[in-house]
């Protein structure tokens, strides 16, 4: 999409004749890359922490609203 917008983009994109198959899963990749159980656990823990922080993160507007409501009380 972007290549139609940029003037400095004369290069050709890769021609995709056939859609590539689904890439290996994280577990399969960990096996082929010979990651240790400890490394796998660290990665899993990190991914979960990122997801949970996104889930609990409130927008700046929501935080201001909550603080204002608390002050009114």
């Amino acid at each position, binding site marked *: *999409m*972007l*290549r139609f917008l*940029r003037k*400095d*983009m*004369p*290069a*050709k*994109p*890769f*021609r*995709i*004749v*056939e*859609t*590539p*198959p*689904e*890439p*290996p*899963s*994280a577990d399969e*990749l*960990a096996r082929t*890359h*010979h*990651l240790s159980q400890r*490394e*796998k656990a*660290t*990665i*899993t823990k*990190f*991914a*979960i922490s*990122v*997801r949970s922080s996104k889930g609990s993160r409130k927008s700046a507007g929501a935080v201001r609203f909550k603080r204002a409501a608390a002050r009114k009380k």
Partner: protein
Amino acid sequence: LAVAKRSADVFLNIPFADSHEFLYIALIAGLVALRLNPRCVLEIPPQQSRLQRLYQLIASCPYSIHDLSYVRLSRTGHRVPRFNMPFELGIAVAVALSKESAEAHQFRIFEARPYRVQQSLSDLLGHDAYIHRGCADGVLESLLDVFSDLPEAPELVEMRRLCRDLRRFRRERLGNNVFTPRAFSNLVVAARKLVET
């Protein structure tokens, strides 16, 4: 040009320099977001048959991306340019030319500035480079451009998010040097895990 094999592997030919860490992380994050699988010379253990294994690795990937933005004269010792990236590009060109069929290998060039490749490597006239402007956002945009024929490509904003999370993983969980086989493996698996989670 057409796909070499039914594989999601993309060979990355990039400089292993601290100044280009943004490129390394952005390429891994961007390719994983595009549901592709980054491969790299770091996966090959140093030994006698290294060149042969490098050739085999490139030949096994349907696509390769070669960043030539670090091709410059060294400041210390003998003032010679680093030839690793153009050398690996040469191997990819040989692989691509060896099979002129639907299974041909496809290669593309990335650069930080326009028209530099034409000056440094005039043999590649007609193979214009994708310009990433020396920033992670430019790398992600270039990836979307180079894989624009890929169905169901993610939005740039999703790729940015994954790139940001992977940079955080690198900062919090990896040591000083990320250009090691272990760090590469960790980054690829972490990026994939972040997409799956």
